[in-house]
């Protein structure tokens, strides 16, 4: 039974909600807007910015000057690489714990979660030293390994909560029909598990894409993804608002789009299933 809402009330809420939404979104909107202006126009008053003509100059400059594509590819490789490896290690583990739980399954899950609680700064020194010794500092391989490990607990937890929702009766039915474990996995479980795996993949690509401690500390140029590339704009040089806006827009656009698709999974993934 829906509550009766007067049209006036709905109109008031609508106006209020849109104003609040636009205020929160405004910094992103403004950044995108400035990216299509010339450097001289971008530092003007808001009225000047709105009135001035549009150009894609800044985007061309960003690419020419600092090899944007190199960093973009690094971001793609790091986020996809660490997520895929994480899934390869995580799926069998989450699977086993969800469908064949043992006495210690709960303890193992909680312990995995506890590794996520370890602050990055606490282990920065050894990781840095290992990086120097093995020559993995500022390489994509080194960073993929680190990102995989920091996200693995989230991957396993998310998958676990999804797999848990697959009804056990279906498995029993398949078993009674004489399906082997392999066939059970292939024909019964996999189709039901795909949505959960897809959501986990999406959320982890987002988290790795935006990860900004390890990517900043362990890279200089070779493996530097977009987070580090953008950080290079922290020392101002002449007029650079339009360039910074263009670089920022390019860096956040792909993930904003992915993010909007994964709103619901975000809640589950980031709360380790504590809120669904």
């Amino acid at each position: 039974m829906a509550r009766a809402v007067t049209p006036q009330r709905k109109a008031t809420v609508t106006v209020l909600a849109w104003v609040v939404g636009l205020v929160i979104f405004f910094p992103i909107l403004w950044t995108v807007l400035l990216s299509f202006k010339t450097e001289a126009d971008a530092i003007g008053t808001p009225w000047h910015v709105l009135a001035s003509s549009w150009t894609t100059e800044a985007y061309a400059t960003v690419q020419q000057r600092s090899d944007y594509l190199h960093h973009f590819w690094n971001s793609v490789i790091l986020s996809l690489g660490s997520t895929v490896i994480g899934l390869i290690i995580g799926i069998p583990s989450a699977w086993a714990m969800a469908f064949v739980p043992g006495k210690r399954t709960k303890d193992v899950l909680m312990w995995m979660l506890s590794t996520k609680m370890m602050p990055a700064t606490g282990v920065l020194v050894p990781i840095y030293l290992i990086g120097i010794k093995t020559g993995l500092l500022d390489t994509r391989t080194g960073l993929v390994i680190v990102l995989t490990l920091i996200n693995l607990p989230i991957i396993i937890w998310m998958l676990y909560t999804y797999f848990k929702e697959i009804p056990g009766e279906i498995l029993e039915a398949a078993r009674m029909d004489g399906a082997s474990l392999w066939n059970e996995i292939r024909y019964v479980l996999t189709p039901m598990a795909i949505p959960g795996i897809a959501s986990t993949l999406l959320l982890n690509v987002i988290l790795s894409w935006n990860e900004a401690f390890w990517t900043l500390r362990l890279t200089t140029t070779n493996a530097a993804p977009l987070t580090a590339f953008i950080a290079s704009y922290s020392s101002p040089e002449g007029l650079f608002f339009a360039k910074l806006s263009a670089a920022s827009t390019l860096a956040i656009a792909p993930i904003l789009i992915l993010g909007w698709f994964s709103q619901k999974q975000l809640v589950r993934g980031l709360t380790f299933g504590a809120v669904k």
Partner: protein
Amino acid sequence: MATAQSRRLARWMSMPAIIVLLLWMVVPLAMTLYFSFRRYNLNYPDRQGWAGWNNYYYFLTDPAFAAAFQNTLVLVIGVLIITVVGGILLALLLDQPFWGQGIVRVLVIAPFFVMPTVSALVWKNMFMNPVNGLFAHAAQAVGLQPIDFLGHHPLSSIVGIVAWAWLPFATLILLTALQSLDREQIEASEMDGAGFGARFFYIILPHMTRSITVVILIQTIFLLGIYAEILVTTNGGPGTQSMNLPYLIAVTTTQQDVGGAAAGGVIAIILANIVAIFLMRMIGKNLES
């Protein structure tokens, strides 16, 4: 239900994840502990030896530590207050029926997907810049002196930037909690003549308590590790005014002081674990139900 064979297989399936996480936890942790008691500076690799508690002593008595510790608390608590209060208000608003719900939701969530270096630099330059920033233009338009946000109020400015990025997270989770509230209970209370205040404090807030706790704990874990935002805005300055613990440890590492940074790392781990214990209990309870 499960056969002995499938149990054995299941154990093998879990092994890779358990082994890599075990290595990831034990090896760096052991190394951090070891180095925290060593005299070891990468600039003077030949001068090595046991340092006893000296690294801890120097790290803890460094005036920068006191400042960093205090700033870390201000940053975490400041952002928590803004995001939790703001999140509750936003969740209440977005839970009402209105036109364009889906689009507004998307607008509100968006900041969460902006990488930290981008959000910090956008706020620093396009908004807080005392000459060309939007706030400066606005101040001039009404005849006020523009404020040098990051120069004069570095920590509050960073709290603001981080709160903007985390508000969507709190909102989204609290909204999810609100939507699972039993509508009939609300209607019944309305029919009994309960005003909005009574409804909020006796029905809505108690229902959201658990989610609020989860938001606070999870955000605390992430907020204790804030680094990129400080790196690209103030570098911890002016002086140590916006230096937090992760930043201080990173600076010590940059100075090649392995022992000192490791001691700082151990302190950071202890702090994070105090929070983690509470969070783990909450999630553990959920696992049983």
